[in-house]
């Protein structure tokens, strides 16, 4: 990541306090405006009339120029400079996150809007977007599990994969059921060779383990062994939710209110024993919050090297000051010269 922030600063800002002298000086010069030069006592000044020449008009400007010169040199003394920061973020090895997503039929339940699966997809994509330094993988499971995307840093592909999770397609290919153990184990399998500092599985389910060759507890043991943290998310409202229970003649689902059953004890246990955390998402908002808290819990170290490019800007100020003083001196001793 490369960013250029330009801003303006003073190296010695305390010198700017000296600018406070300038108004005092201005008042002093005004009070003593007639005492600075040698004067000639004359018998009747009114004889010259009230006519004012350019010189009369320029003369007060000299004092102004002196004040400006002083101000400019004070500003120059404070050393103004512009800083451009080039920040280079070193891609530290982030954490590897496997998303184990339940795609069983019950995920179509409409307690989350529009349904559990769609809500999950949306929040998962946001989650991925928010963690640019981590690698992601996606495992889908129902009665059996398969790896949709292996661990990769190519977030585009991961997000695309999540977006493309299509229930109907999966419904025809995967065995039915909810094999939490299988899903977890598949995810673990993908993570076990990873060299990332931290390995995380986010396991999402909305039911109870009811099928599969690997028991969730076995998978838990595996997770512990490989040092993989498992965050578990139980999706589903408390009580009843419209859930697909049967197919009608055209292949569509028939929804009935069914009691939401989540094996919270198991999920809690998995989370606790691997050092993760169990969350319960009862609606979209809650789900979103969960992802945010996981985001916070899993911090990625980002090393950032900043390059400061200073551009000293005192030169024009000092130059202006010197130039003004020079002009003032020049005018005073040539054009505005007094011979008394």
């Amino acid at each position, binding site marked *: 990541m490369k960013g250029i922030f330009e801003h303006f600063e003073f190296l010695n800002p305390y010198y700017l306090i000296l600018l406070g002298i300038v108004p005092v000086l201005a008042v002093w010069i005004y009070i003593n405006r*007639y005492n600075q030069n040698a*004067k000639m006592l004359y018998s009747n000044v009114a004889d010259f009339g009230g006519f004012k020449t350019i010189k009369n008009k320029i003369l007060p400007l000299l004092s102004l120029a002196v004040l400006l010169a002083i101000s400019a040199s004070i500003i120059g003394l404070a050393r103004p400079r512009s800083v451009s920061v080039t920040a280079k973020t070193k891609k530290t090895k982030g954490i590897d996150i496997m998303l184990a997503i339940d795609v069983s039929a019950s995920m179509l339940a409409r307690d989350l809007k529009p349904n559990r699966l769609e809500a999950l997809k949306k929040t998962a994509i946001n989650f991925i977007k928010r963690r640019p330094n981590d690698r992601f993988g996606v495992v889908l499971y129902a009665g059996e599990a398969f790896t949709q995307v292996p661990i990769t840093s190519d977030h585009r592909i991961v997000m695309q994969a999540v977006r493309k999770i299509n229930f109907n397609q999966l419904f025809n290919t995967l065995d039915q059921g909810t094999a939490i153990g299988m899903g977890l184990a598949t995810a673990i399998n993908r993570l076990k060779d990873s060299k990332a500092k931290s390995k995380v599985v986010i396991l999402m389910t909305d039911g109870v383990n009811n099928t599969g060759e690997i028991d969730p507890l076995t998978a838990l043991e595996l997770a512990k062994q490989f040092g993989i943290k498992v965050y578990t998310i139980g999706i589903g409202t408390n009580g009843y939710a419209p859930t697909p229970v049967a197919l009608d003649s055209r292949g569509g689902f028939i929804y009935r209110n069914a009691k939401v059953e989540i094996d919270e004890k198991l999920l809690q246990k998995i989370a606790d024993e691997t050092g993760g955390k169990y969350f319960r998402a009862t609606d979209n908002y809650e789900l979103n919050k969960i992802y945010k808290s996981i985001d916070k819990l899993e911090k990625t170290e980002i090393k950032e090297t900043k390059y400061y490019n200073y551009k000293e800007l005192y030169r024009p100020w000092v130059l202006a000051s010197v130039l003004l003083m020079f002009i003032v001196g020049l005018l005073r001793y040539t054009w505005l010269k007094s011979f008394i």
Partner: protein
Amino acid sequence: MTTKEILKKVRKIEIKTKRLSDHIFGGEYHSSFKGRGMTFSEVRPYAYGDDVRNIDWNVTARYRTPFVKVFEEERELTMLLAVDISRSEWFGTKTDLKKNMITEIVATLAFSAIQNNDKVGLVLFSNEIELFIPPAKGRTHVLRIIRELVDFHPKKNGTDISNTLKFVYNILKKKAIVFLISDFMDKDYDQTLKIVGRKHDLTGIKVFDPMEKDMPDLGLVLLEDLETGKKKYVDTSNKQIRRVHNATFLKRDDYFKKSFQQAGAGVIRISTQESYIKKLLQYFKQRS
């Protein structure tokens, strides 16, 4: 100025101007301010030693004894010196300040008057009457006049000629020789001048500095007005400003000359770089 310095200066002025009045002015002054000479007073019987030219033959014939006319010298003239001591006199770019020149002129005139047995009085004025010394005779009196001139500190700075003329008119009951010495940096005095001029033998002596007439190119100069104290930067390089300055001077000078001439008074103009002796002499000669 300490008393010693003042006395020294007075002495110096005395020597310088007394010599002048003795040797050069004496006669000129005398003849230019003539009294009526001798006036007849009475007749008395001839006594031995009387000038036979004074015998009044008419009376002698009537009484058949010789009588002579007795003449009385006409009363001495009074000279009043009205001197401007305003701050503007403290200016002078040539040999001396206007003020010092005025002092010398006054001293010369005063000694001349004493020489002639006239009474001398002094009025010092700015924009008010600062000092009045009544006319009197004697060397010490003149010395006092000079001392006052040298060491008088006016209370006011301005110049008011009209006011001074009114004062002079009020204090002088008889015809007198009045010298008004100033730089005449004032206006609207022609009416009072006429009134005074009708009664007295009036002369205006204007003392000025050449720089007051023609300002040289001095660049941008800070000027402080001696009378008002106002300060101002004046671009003396500017021709227009110099022209205005010169025109103002000439206008005032013209007014001075015209007013005095209309009042039947004499005019002497002396620049600080000139010799005032010559100018005075010239004036007296021209009068007689």
